[in-house]
């Protein structure tokens, strides 16, 4: 079977490139060694260099501000109306840092260890170690910027624990940590705008990348308010455009989050790493019906005191939960995982919720005949701690739940269900965060590098800021120094003109279809295929079916979509969506191919064929200890798989167990 699959769906190519991490020194000296060996650009010469940054979330905003301070000319692009609105803003819980402020034996090595283990041993040791190493400096930087972290009466910073680790290393700002960190980066960025080092391009989206003589040299951006395509040439390009979870249509991502920038780069030669690794978050508010546009995450911290259950009997599911006596309730996580109970990691909690609903024991409104919800019950906590104490701890989340659902969670249990949350895959990058396309750097959620197959809580904010404030400013100079003497690319050069023409042709093609289906109807259909077959549980059979369905849907899209309005002269939100959905159609297929090839279960990727007797995820380190890095070969052509072997010199690989 594997041979056939190979021929039809993909071919295997050369192993991935050298990561540039210095492997001749101990892990703890890797980052110092790399920084020392990287070439520098002297301050007077930085003024002559231009860097494009797409996306102004934690990674892009921090990088733009930092590179601007250093004296480079930076052009920052974002599709929102203000840099302050990037989706990093919606992160609630917190940000980890190995500060050991609690004297609880935390250390850089322990944060590194927890992160690699949490990622189910599918992340790169050197990158993760560096993440842990710079984590402490992130907190210092943010405090200096005025980020109002939670404090104690002594005036020092407060911490809490998060995501199942055994130390308190999470810094937080109520339930708005992402917002406060992003505002810090945004303010640093606006300071550079005032200083003239950074030029902002609001309501612009990147629609093509300019590649000249094998290097990334600029982008074609579309001014969304006028429809005009604009050319921007530069010495290097940084993509910090976030994740691609909206391929599922319903997700916790912002409505505008998209894969277009990284997908255009992929089509121009940048490899795509581990596209199938998607994190499903267990505590989201369930879908209410078919008018739904997105899902809302409830903080994972609720699982500290809430008890998760479903009725034991399917016939009780429509009853008022308060009328179901204790003996008729199945506290299934406590039953199956007695030692971790409701605090099992995200992938496990999510999968078991799905199992309960698939068995017919889900609660709440039925969507397509199945009730997809489980109870998260605070009745015991209210009895134990009192309503006031529960309110002090979770009040804002309870209010948010009530606003969205109309139910009062103090009176009746919340209903939750898993939802697509964060994508661990992204463009392949080396230790410098450079893709295999020289001059193209990728930061934050848009790259694949630090999270492996699963992501622990409070680690995404850490990666975004680590990449933006500390890694990129110290690695991109190595490239810029080497290409300092390259001739400036002329806007009329054939490579630039070709990129502009490609972008224009694509828009013309979308406008010309003139069918009778809306873009959203295609997006919803793609999303349901992805959720059904490439969601929480995947099988070879299902993935193959999904690939066929996606190909059919894509053909239908290009034959029957209709984009109303004009492409030039005014805002056209349908056209924006059409371009993004067209890219999701191609990316969705690659996700399914990647999931099909990886015949093991790890973190957020659960292959039903690969599980232990108890139904837990079963990794196959002998066959899959690698990063999948995919090369584009053309529309409808099988992609090429390059494998980057993962080397674990400092951590022993173990099977995760939460029983």
């Amino acid at each position, binding site marked *: 079977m594997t041979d056939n699959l190979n021929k039809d769906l993909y071919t295997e190519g050369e192993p991935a490139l050298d990561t540039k991490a210095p492997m001749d020194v101990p892990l703890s000296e890797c980052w110092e060694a790399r920084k020392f060996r990287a070439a520098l650009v002297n301050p007077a010469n930085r003024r002559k260099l231009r860097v494009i940054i797409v996306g102004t979330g934690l990674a892009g905003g921090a990088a733009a501000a*930092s590179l601007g*301070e250093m004296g480079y000319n930076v052009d920052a692009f974002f599709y*929102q*109306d*203000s*840099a*302050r*609105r*990037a*989706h990093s*803003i*919606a992160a609630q819980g917190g940000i980890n840092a190995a500060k050991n402020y609690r004297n609880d034996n935390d250390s850089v090595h322990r944060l590194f260890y927890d992160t690699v283990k949490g990622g189910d041993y599918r992340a790169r040791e050197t990158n993760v170690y560096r993440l842990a190493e710079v984590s402490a400096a992130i907190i210092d*930087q943010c*405090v*200096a*910027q*005025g980020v*109002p972290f939670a*404090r*104690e009466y002594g*005036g*020092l*910073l407060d911490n809490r624990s998060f995501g199942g680790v055994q130390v308190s290393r999470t810094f937080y*700002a109520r339930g708005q940590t992402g*917002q*406060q960190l992003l*505002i810090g980066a*945004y*303010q*640093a960025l*606006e*300071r550079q*705008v*005032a200083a003239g080092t950074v030029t902002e391009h*609001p309501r612009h989206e990147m629609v093509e990348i300019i590649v000249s003589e094998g290097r990334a040299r600029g982008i074609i951006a579309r001014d969304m*308010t006028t429809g005009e395509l604009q050319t921007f040439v530069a010495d290097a390009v940084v993509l910090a455009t976030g994740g691609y979870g909206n391929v599922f249509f319903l997700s916790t991502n*912002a*409505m*505008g989050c998209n894969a277009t920038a990284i997908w255009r780069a992929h089509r121009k030669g940048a490899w795509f790493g581990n596209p199938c690794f998607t994190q499903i978050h267990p505590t989201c508010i369930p879908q*209410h*019906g078919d*008018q*739904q*546009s*997105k899902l*809302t995450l409830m903080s994972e911290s609720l699982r500290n005191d809430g008890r998760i259950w479903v009725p034991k009997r399917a016939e009780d599911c429509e009853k008022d939960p308060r009328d179901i006596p204790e003996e008729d309730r199945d506290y299934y996580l406590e039953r199956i995982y007695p030692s971790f109970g409701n605090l099992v990691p995200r992938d496990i909690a999510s999968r078991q919720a799905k199992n309960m609903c698939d068995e017919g024991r889900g609660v709440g409104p039925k969507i397509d005949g199945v009730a997809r919800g489980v109870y998260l019950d605070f009745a015991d906590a209210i009895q134990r701690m009192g309503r006031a104490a529960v309110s002090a701890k979770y009040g804002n989340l309870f209010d*948010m739940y009530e*606003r*969205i*659902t*109309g139910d009062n969670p103090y009176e009746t249990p919340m209903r939750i269900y898993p939802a697509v949350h964060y994508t661990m895959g992204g463009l392949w990058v080396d230790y410098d965060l450079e893709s295999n396309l020289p001059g193209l750097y990728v930061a934050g959620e848009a790259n694949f590098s630090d999270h492996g197959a699963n992501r622990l809580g409070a680690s995404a904010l850490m990666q975004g800021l680590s990449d933006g404030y500390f890694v990129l*400013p110290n690695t991109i100079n190595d490239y810029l120094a080497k290409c300092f003497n390259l001739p400036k690319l002329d806007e009329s050069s054939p490579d630039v003109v070709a990129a502009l023409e490609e972008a224009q042709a694509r828009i013309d093609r979308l406008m010309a279809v003139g069918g009778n289906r*809306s873009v*959203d109807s295609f997006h919803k259909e793609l999303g349901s295929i992805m959720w059904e077959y490439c969601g929480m549980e995947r099988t070879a059979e299902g993935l193959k079916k999904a690939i066929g369905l996606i190909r059919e849907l894509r053909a239908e899209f290009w034959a029957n979509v*209709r984009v*109303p309005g004009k492409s030039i*002269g*005014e*805002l056209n939100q*349908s056209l924006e969506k059409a371009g993004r959905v067209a890219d999701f159609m191609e990316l969705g297929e690659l996700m399914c191919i990647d999931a099909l090839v990886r015949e093991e279960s790890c973190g957020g990727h659960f292959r039903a064929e690969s599980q232990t007797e108890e139904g837990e995820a079963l990794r196959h380190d002998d066959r899959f200890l690698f990063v999948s890095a995919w090369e584009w070969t053309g529309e409808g052509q099988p992609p090429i798989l390059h494998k980057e072997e993962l080397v674990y010199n400092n951590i022993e690989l173990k099977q995760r167990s939460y029983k």
Partner: protein
Amino acid sequence: MNLTLKIWRQSGPQDPGAMHEYQIRGISEESSFLEMLDVLNEELFARGEEPIAFDSDCREGICGQCGIVINGVAHGPEVTTTCQLHMRTFNDGDVITIEPWRAQAFPIIKDLVVNRSALDRIIQAGGYISVNTGAAPDAHATPVPKGDADRAFEAAACIGCGACVAACPNASAMLFTSAKVTHLQLLPQGKPENLRRVVAMLNQLDEEGFGSCTNIGECAAVCPKEIPLDVISTLNRQLGKAAFMGV
């Protein structure tokens, strides 16, 4: 639910614009206000009409991108963002009027979408602490009294949606500006450049064409993040100090 919607349509900044009326049926009470507009847009598409342009992004009430005037009130009848307003707030058969933020400093781009870049330029004038990356002392080197940290947080919760401007009869951005000044001046890190910041941000506010504050309080009444009105008096005290010191 069945509703009558009166919506402001304007194809571009130069177009005069007008109210249009639409009937919509079968809206779920569970839907958010923006999901209701999504449904309307699918219907307009099916009828061969152009969908209504409106802004939204996170749809979780935190990014600040959405924002329309509903029945004359910024973000509508509940104190929340437009994306977190749900249709159960309305009754079957209601007539709902929907307009964009109205302010000279917020030019209309299309339909319900306005340009709020003026708020970014107020931040550029001084709404930050001048610290370069890598130059920060240890976070515990400067303790901050918990009361100050909490009050700073309260002011920092502003999401920059612009509802305060839309609600103000003078279209003033004073609540927005004061929230930032209050946030930064309460923290020891933000004190050194405080008075300069106050003067520069207020000058920018005037230059952008926002009106002046006459303490009406509509801004705080509609603020989805419940920024307290007294941040404005905090700013005014700092302004007085700046005048006294000749900043």
